[in-house]
């Protein structure tokens, strides 16, 4: 397990797509170092041969009949869009 100093806040914020202010970076780095130090305790546990648990009661292979069902109307689907025009969501230019 790593030591908390490894936490490169710029790299992580970039992966998370969140712009942080310098104040937030300083504050979060210190707070997360605290939390990670606490989490280091997990190193003490012997997990040799232990299977990981992703879900307490895993449900596998949930199939649904391939039947068309009515969904939201265009009006309902676009109701919460920040910007829309002609039944489409407007976004900034994505090609150069």
């Amino acid at each position, binding site marked *: *397990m*790593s030591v908390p100093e*490894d*936490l490169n*806040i710029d*790299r*992580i*914020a970039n*992966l*998370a*797509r*969140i*712009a*942080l202010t310098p104040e*937030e970076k300083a504050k*979060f780095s210190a*707070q*997360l170092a*605290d*939390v*990670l130090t*606490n*989490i280091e*305790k*997990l*190193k003490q*546990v012997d*997990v040799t041969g*232990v*299977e*990981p*648990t*992703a*879900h*307490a*009661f895993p*449900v596998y292979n*949930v199939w*649904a009949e391939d039947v068309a069902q009515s969904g*939201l109307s265009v009006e*309902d*689907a676009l*109701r*919460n*869009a*920040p*910007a829309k025009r002609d039944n489409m*969501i407007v*976004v*900034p*230019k*994505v090609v150069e």
Partner: protein
Amino acid sequence: MSSELFNKPISELAALLEAKTITSVELTQAVIARTQTVDERVKAFNSYDTADALAQAAASDARRAAGQSLGALDGIPIGIKDVIAVTGQPLTASSKMLANFVSPYDATVTQKLKNAGAVIWGRLNLDEFAMGSSTENSAFHTTRNPYNLDCVPGGSSGGSAAALAAGEAIATLGSDTGGSIRQPAALCNVVGLKPTYGLVSRFGLIAFASSLDQIGPFTRTVEDAAILLQAIVGHDERDSTSFKTEIPDYRAALKTKKGPWKLGIPKEYFGEGLDPEVAAAVQKAIDYYKSLGCEIRPVSLPHTEYGVGVYYIIATAECSSNLSRYDGIRYGHRSADANDIVDLYFKSRAEGFGPEVKRRIILGTYVLSSGYYDAYYLRAQKVRTLIRQDFLNAYNEVDAIITPTTPTPAFKRGAKADPLAMYLCDVYTIGVNLAGLPGISVPCGFSSGGLPIGMQLIGQPFKEADLLAIANAYDSAHDWAKRTPNL
């Protein structure tokens, strides 16, 4: 105070409605009037729609007059945590990100409550995206504890617990990822049930940590919890983690399942950090079970101390993935001053999320990032297996486990500014989510300062009927819930 309609349990009100002693419109008006009187101080609601509630109540009265009552919940006003979708109503998660979002559809639990005739009432405050233990992380306002307005109501479902305690609803729904139903229930003197993972559909619940989240009821009595649970359970093909299991009659089980039970007391939950008054109140409840002839046995859950660490790896990892959908494109907050599409993601998320949500996304992104996945996430999932195994081993010997719900009664607003101190509040409730078990908090006393204390009963997977019967054996013989706050 207890004679007021707005302070009565569902079971009593259902009888009054059925006998036509009262109407749903009268009951709903009483709840609305109470809310308008006290919510300025309690601040449990993000919003409510009185015209809509009264229209639902009038429809309920018309059904009953025509002899077509839908049962015990028909005409009962039920508040909904503001992470559960109700068609045409706001759905904010107490976040700026969703401040203007309006639900285009009903959550499955909402639809089920409507099918049962309930009056869907109001949107209840929470810690932003259900991340927190005090409701102080709401982007809008902090909900107050009705028993002491300087104290927190707990969280994240603080609005759901406080509204019920204050008489602003007859029951409420919340969601529980690491204790978010049971902890505020304990702090506000109400019953709070987190069902077994997979028993209640999460379709229409805003996702926080998908392997842990469950929806559950807040009520005044265990009997009411049985009534409300009955209405919301069941397999749902729109939630792929929904479990197919036989659903018993929970309310009938309160009478048919009589014990005496074998109850386990895990020493790890009664150690350092437990407030002496909380310990004493829970011990008195244990003594009551003993007086009923129950066998009280010590059990051990040796991996308890790792619960908080495992939780904050798994929950943050899952939240960093779930919350990636809030990108300012299809819905939610969009930054007004972005230069291009990538800048739009960064700025929309920076402006839309509050500090705790950002912290958790950052932590979750870190533990999942290349080079750290095995050390953190995979190891946490393995320790999770051991925590779950601890409980299953204990259930070879006992029917249920009794613990305090929280280490202390409600704390003052602002008292836990350090995130780690706040995370440690959930030490007794987290294991239940990691193991996927049902857990219920039941009022069991008050501190010398007049603050409520709750005990937690932890049951076996999908055995809510037994858990409720055990909880009811105590609850039906005590009347802590009748001690309503002075507001």
